[in-house]
């Protein structure tokens, strides 16, 4: 998908659109060929196009669902990685945990972008979007849970008191056995 975009964006300098759908005469500077009836074409086409469009919408909805479900695989993968990295704090587990936190966040930031190709007034995108968000939130929760199991979340009293200096004492005393 990424690749295709790239080719489209920068590869071609010019293009002709052979499916000219515009119907108004004013916009057309070239007259229609003889015997060509635009109206009949439109009528004839509309059935085909509708079918096509329906198929496309179906396809889009299907794709959107697929995209929406994609984080689930990710989630499983992450879960496996987390299980592998164990519960002690070291470079590897911290790396995994932070990537587990970062991925859902970045994914959530780009929700609109991910579903843009499937935008269609006929396609109901809200549910897949919600699923997508929910799954990503699930991933985030997994990351936070991992952070907690690593003991990196300040949820215990010990996290708040260990930086407190010892209390000052009011009295002061000294002495002992005589110096010798």
């Amino acid at each position, binding site marked *: 998908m990424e690749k295709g975009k790239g080719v489209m964006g920068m590869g071609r300098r010019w293009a002709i659109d052979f499916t000219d759908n515009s119907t108004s005469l004013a916009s057309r500077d070239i007259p229609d060929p003889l015997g060509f009836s635009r109206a009949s074409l439109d009528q004839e086409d509309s059935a085909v196009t509708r079918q096509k469009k329906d198929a496309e919408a179906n396809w889009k909805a299907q794709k959107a669902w697929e995209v929406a479900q994609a984080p689930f695989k990710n989630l499983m993968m992450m879960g496996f990685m987390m299980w*592998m*990295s*164990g519960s*002690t704090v*070291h*470079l*590897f587990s911290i790396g995994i945990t932070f990537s587990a936190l970062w991925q859902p966040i970045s994914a959530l930031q780009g929700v609109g972008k991910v579903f843009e190709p499937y935008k269609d007034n006929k396609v109901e995108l809200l549910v897949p979007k919600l699923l997508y968000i929910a799954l990503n939130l699930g991933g985030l929760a997994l990351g936070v849970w991992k952070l907690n199991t690593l*003991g990196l979340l*300040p*949820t*215990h*009293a*010990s*996290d*708040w*008191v*260990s*930086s*407190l*200096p*010892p*209390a*000052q*004492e*009011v*009295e*002061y*005393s*000294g*002495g*002992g*056995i*005589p*110096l*010798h």
Partner: protein
Amino acid sequence: MAIRTFVLLVLFLSSMNLSFSLYEDQVGLMDWHQKYIGKVKHAVFHTQKAGRKRVVVSTEHNVIASLDLRHGDIYWRHVLGADDAIDGIDITLGKYVITLSSGGSILRAWNLPDGQLVWESVLKGSKPSKTMLIVPTSFRVDKENLILAFAEGCLHAVSSVDGEIIWRKDFAAESLDVQQVIQAPGEETIHVLGYLESFQFHAYQINSRKGDEIKHVTVDFPGGFSGDTLLVSGDVLVALDATRSILLTIFFQDGEINFRKTQISSLVDDSHGVVEILPSKLADMFALKTNKFLVLARVTDGGKVELVEKIKEAAALSDAISLSESQQAFALVRHENEKLHFVVKPVHDWNMDLLKEAIKIDNHRGRVHKVFINNYIRTDRSHGFRALIVMEDHSLSLIQQGEMVWCREDGLASVIDVTTSELPVEKDGVSVSKVEQNLFEWLKGHILKLKGTLMLASPEDVAAIQKMRLKSSEKSKMTRDHNGFRKLLIVLTGAGKVFALHTGDGRIVWSLLLQSLRKSEKCDYPTGLRIYPWQVPHHHALDENPSVLVVGRCGPSDDAPGLLSFIDAYTGQELNYLVPVHSVVQVIPLPFTDSTEQRLHLLVDANQRAHLYPRSPEALSIFRPEISNIYWYSVEADNGIIRGHVSKGSCSYNEEDEYCFDPKDLWSVVLPAESEKIVAMGTRKINEVVHTQAKVIADQDVMYKYISRNLLFLATTAPKGSGEIGSATPEESWLVVYLIDTITGRILHRMTHQGSQAPVRAVFSENWVVYHYFNLRAHRYEMSVVEIYDQSRADNKDVLKLVVGKHNLTSPVSSYSRPEVIAKSQSYFFTHSVKAITVTSTAKGITSKQLLIGTIGDQVLALDKRYLDPRRTINPTQAEKEEGIIPLTDSLPIIPQSYVTHALKVEGLRGIVTVPAKLESTTLVFTYGVDLFFTRLAPSRTYDSLTEDFSYALLLLTIAALIVAIFVTWIWSERKELQEKWR
């Protein structure tokens, strides 16, 4: 797979933390060791044969050592036990050094070249007496040489070859106080002379072969004898009568005893005070010491005593040595006007000088205490002399040909107390050329190091690297460094001399013989007690030099007047000294400083009155508002009483002295004298920093430490258990430990160890005490730990409240609020007996702690505090394991790599001092005894800095290589992309 390997690696790395160790090539990088011998008592030269010229000395620190006469280095050295004082040394057969020690009960022979023990004989007598060692001067080896040792009332003849006791004769049965044992060279008769009940003079003649009594003569002298006698020549003895006003000359030749009395006043006109006979053997002459003069007198052939010379200045005399058959000479050394006057005179002619030299000498050495001379034949066949001189500061120096050949600072063998001072801050304006040179050298050094890292270095390079590491100029600079490793160690020695040692290489920066700690009319027996940092400028008084306070006392008793001396820590000048009228039994540094950063101190006198220093109105104005919160306590170890005091108001005995405060007794703890005797106590170090009050335990739970400076640890044993180990049975000995709040006198914790006994050594830090004692039941030493936790704070566990700051954990606490504490404790066996114990201290108290244990083998062992954790169990849970709790074992492990002193020994170890460096991970450790040892420790490894041998060059090289690689690959990728586009 990779992950598991990684995890294993991490686990391996973390387990390495357990042991502190260093590589062979790291020895000497950050530690130094100095060997000393102490103040010399006797010296015997061994210079007859060609080859290595040496002198064998015995010292007051029970050291016998063989020194190189050329450089003063130690060839070999033996430090005998603390109760094995050396009474006499000599050389026999030209190859054995004979020592008589332990009150005359042990006679040993050491091999002269290498100091190995050849034989040892135990001489048994019946009662303690004067000890004498007589070694015949014959050099004929074939003849059976007998060593005569008089000890414990018995005369023993010992074979010098194997130490076998040939015969012994007991004089103790006749209750004879033997004064002299004489054997003239080549004769077979031994004369034993002594007093009976100090008015009857006895002379025995004994056959040296068999020990038979040949003759016994007694003469009564009604005037009585006092003090020591001195043998003047082969048959003449001088002594003093009981009044010390008459000098007795005793002739004992041919079995007859004759007395001759001489009034001392006839020799010296104005002699009052105590007259003493000096022990210098001068052959026909003797020396008397009166209160003003040193009197030299001669016994003429007719038995008359005639005055030779009166010397007014303090002078030291050597024994006479024989130059030839007929000529004998002795040395006289005086110290005046920064010069040492060294005169050698023949015994028979006072007016002649064989040698007269004046040697310039450092003023901080004081008077001459002892002189030992030795002669040699010069190339022109005249006699030359060398002299070994012991000065007032216990230093030992050799003078020869008008100059000081070497000097040993043996005063450092008797360190009493140690403090530290920061070095001056580095000033700007280092010249450019110096920097460039430094930069070049720096680069060169790093390239060498890089070679070493990449294994490209040749053996010479390796040697150069090692030398560079050891002699790095960085560590011996005289300025403060970023990590705080460079400091001045200011030590007070037994001779009253203060030394400043550089922590980098241990050199002496300055030394000062304190005028106030020298014998004077005001002060008979001044002794130094402690040294304290007095002024530590850091913020607004940076331009002032720091200073230290030396506290001393005139005389041995507690109520003797005190001495105070203030010394500039940079220059070593005595800024000021006070000879206060009051006595000093305690010094309490207060937590306040005045505007010049002088710390306020309370000096408590024998009547428990407190005196405030510095004596300035400002100090008083700082102190007065705080007076009701300042407490002091006194421990009377003999009576078993601990008393707490607070100020009642100005002193009643002297209303004008507003710096003096009368005590009011607040509380007292009286221990039952019949069952408990105080044997040890411990408090937290005044300058200890504690980072946190919470201890996080397994499952993120928290326990609150009871951190109080006002806690006293006290250990008592049953009176029977305070003696030596084995003197009490387990049933009649017990050890009781207390934790006492010194403000209120409340006993926070008390615990009894049945069947245990002294000696007890304890260390107190943060909220825990570790103490070491002997368990009579198990026949082993034990170490126990007590940790105290504050229960009244235990409810502070609500995270929300803690987040918004609704807690009372940082509000000031008072001991009167009766905190609820719980104590946890655990005991372990420990293999070694312990001479000293202390704990590492770091700048912020974050780094984990190690106990530093001075073992009986005079080494320092670092033991992780984690081994002494009362929460250890046999099977710790997973969470506890993660917390770092080690499974419980019955004894504490001794890991050979964790000896801080690695292969070295700090002979006669007495104390260990830890000082925090500025770098949190690191602590400086100074150990003193007869030797000095200094090192740097990182109990949790140096987690906050790169190690010394980190290769910066390799790092730079790697970075450069990476940058080049980035550029090359970038160019490649550009090119490739272009080609792709044209395709």
